[in-house]
């Protein structure tokens, strides 16, 4: 099948290319790179003037895992079946069927961190996509049209899986992808939860997952192996449990990691959940955090205030922001966003994979009421002993930002914690006013200081 446009940058690889460039040369080169990174981290001279403690040593492994994933992506088309999926899509059966998964949202975030998102999004804007559309969608559509990507190359999808448990934007976005790529689109509709899920809602989602499996099996030309599926589910559960434990380690004072570290280290649980490598990685990370806790090492050197971050990060600013806040003794120790990939771990049941998947994928924070998010935030303020809350009002992500004015209000009035609404965008620097943003942040820090 061919799409609406030629999109010449989506090329297929041969098995030989995949083997030589990825399996042999690529993997070895990345291992050598990891050794170099480890050596650099181990021999790094202390930086007394930096407000941050040295980075976690495990970051070298994370770079290796993530780079390997994107590297394989360059050679996956034509060798493995490829699915492009939304961040909240039920991917475990696809993993078990051997699909290579591409998460366009994560790819867009990568563009954001590398400060390439604006120029790539402009490719979409020049082609007529409105600036009011989520900047993730614009970044990925821009990348699809132009071939521009810091990842080298993405593989063309054989199937698209879109789950509406995060927003309705993805529905329209994936229809566009389907139109361009001319491949099947599986849509999984998740009813919005005002309270707990009803059984008929669980049954409804489960049936759609079953339908997805049929489509995926047909495209893959093989059937889902039950044992393999359960293994993937078990890894998914263990990975999510570990991730939750990692995040909860920041309840310690001083917190061994910041939410900014979390934004970076969440890559594996988002992109590769269900794979054994994720479990191994998070075990390593957890051990290192425990070592920090034992030695009383905090992620920032002088932790005076502990803060919660709500909503997506501002990808193009995370480095600057984490340093700026650390200089003022502010440690962002928790975030509702990173939590979203851990908090549902107890729901995953490898013995009842389909039922539990239906439940899990109905319950992401973005598919639940604003009151639910407020309750989660209140609980985090309590459990992490927080001094303040930063609510990033994200111009792109309407479902996440909806209700923040009232949530902020309740946090200030009911809990008495200073809370700041920071207007920005997760990927588009044109929607962040530097001067005004830092002025608000400064005033927020001073308000916490005044209470101390």
């Amino acid at each position: 099948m061919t799409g609406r446009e030629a999109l010449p940058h989506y090329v297929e690889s041969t098995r030989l290319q995949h083997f030589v460039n990825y399996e042999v040369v690529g993997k070895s080169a990345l291992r050598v790179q990891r050794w170099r990174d480890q050596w650099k981290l181990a021999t790094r001279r202390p930086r007394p003037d930096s407000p941050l403690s040295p980075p976690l040593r495990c970051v070298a492994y994370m770079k290796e895992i993530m780079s390997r994933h994107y590297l394989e992506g360059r050679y996956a088309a034509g060798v493995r079946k490829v699915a492009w999926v939304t961040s909240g899509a039920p991917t475990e059966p696809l993993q078990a069927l051997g699909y290579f998964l591409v998460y366009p949202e994560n790819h867009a975030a990568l563009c954001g961190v590398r400060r390439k998102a604006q120029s790539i999004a402009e490719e979409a804007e020049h082609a007529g996509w409105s600036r009011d559309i989520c900047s993730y969608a614009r970044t990925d559509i821009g990348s699809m049209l132009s071939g521009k990507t810091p990842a080298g190359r993405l593989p063309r999808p054989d199937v698209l899986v879109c789950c509406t448990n995060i927003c309705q934007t993805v529905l329209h976005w994936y229809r566009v992808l389907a139109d361009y790529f001319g491949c099947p689109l599986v849509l999984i509709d998740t009813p919005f939860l005002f309270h707990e899920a009803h059984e008929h809602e669980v049954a409804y989602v489960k049936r759609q997952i079953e339908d997805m499996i049929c489509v995926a099996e047909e495209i893959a030309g093989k059937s889902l192996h039950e044992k393999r599926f359960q293994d993937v589910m078990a890894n998914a559960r263990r990975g999510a449990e570990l991730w939750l434990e990692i995040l909860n380690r920041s309840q310690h004072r001083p917190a061994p990691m910041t939410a900014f570290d979390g934004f970076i280290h969440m890559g594996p649980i988002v992109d590769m959940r269900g794979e054994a490598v994720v479990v191994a990685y998070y075990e390593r990370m957890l051990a290192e955090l425990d070592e920090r806790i034992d030695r009383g090492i905090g992620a920032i050197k002088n932790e005076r205030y502990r803060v919660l971050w709500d909503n997506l990060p501002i990808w193009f600013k995370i480095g600057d922001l984490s340093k700026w806040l650390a200089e003022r003794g502010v440690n962002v120790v928790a975030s509702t966003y990173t939590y979203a990939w851990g908090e549902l771990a107890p729901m995953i049941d490898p013995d009842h994979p389909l039922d539990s998947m239906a439940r899990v994928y109905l319950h992401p924070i973005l598919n639940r009421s604003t009151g639910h998010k407020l309750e989660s935030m209140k609980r985090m303020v309590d459990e992490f002993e927080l001094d303040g809350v930063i609510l990033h009002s994200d111009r792109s992500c309407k479902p996440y930002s909806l209700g923040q004015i009232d949530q902020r209000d309740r946090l200030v009035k009911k809990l008495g914690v200073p809370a700041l609404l920071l207007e920005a965008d997760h990927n588009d620097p044109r929607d962040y006013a530097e001067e005004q943003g830092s002025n608000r942040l400064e005033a927020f820090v001073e308000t916490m200081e005044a209470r101390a």
Partner: protein
Amino acid sequence: MSHVAAIGIDAGSTTCKLVAVDRDGAIIAWLLEPTEPRVEIQVRRMLDALRAEIRIETAVPAIATGYGRKLIKQATRNLTEITCHARGVFRDLGRAGTLIDIGGQDSKVIQIGEDGRPVDFMMNDKCAAGTGRFLEYTAARLGVPIEALGKRALSVSSEEPISSTCTVFAESEIISLIARGAEPDAILRGLHRSLVGRVVSMARSVGIVPPVMLSGGVARNEAVRTMIAEATGEDVIVPRQPQLMGAYGAALLGSAA
């Protein structure tokens, strides 16, 4: 004359203010000028002028606030207007409550707690409507000097409602109102109402705890004061020198008085 304990510098977008306080936190001297493009040079000159007026020891702390605060090399520390206005007004009026600061280029609502500390705040820093610039810009279109704005707006009972929420579009609206023969003072009244409406809705989102207090240059405008009182149904109290409150608070924070 008593010794200078600290200096506050408020490098605002419209005006630049310097205040010197003594150990008891009383204002000994102050200066106010329209902000010049190179505010750091201006502050240096104003500090010299202040020195000519009163004796200042070299080691006196100087706290800078306002949008240009980071450019002021002489400052020992800089703090946002939120902290400084709250401190200045609390010291001057001695009341907890809701402070509305309408500056030249932004406006803020600050809730001041019983101990004088800012509990919560909200800023309008994205849009000129709702700031002093809105009146300045539109008044220029009507040819009315700024000092006369409030009096003229209160001198009439009729009011032309202004529907545009944007400063630039409000200007076009004024032009068409004039063309239709509307009374300029009634237009002015409508403009004040529009500004007050926006500021009060921001105050409501923070939550209005009485009394309502005003600071910043626009607080000297009697129509703004009257209309805020009408809109909130609360008493509005204003410090003697509302424009100096940022610099005054900064000086107080420097002297820890």
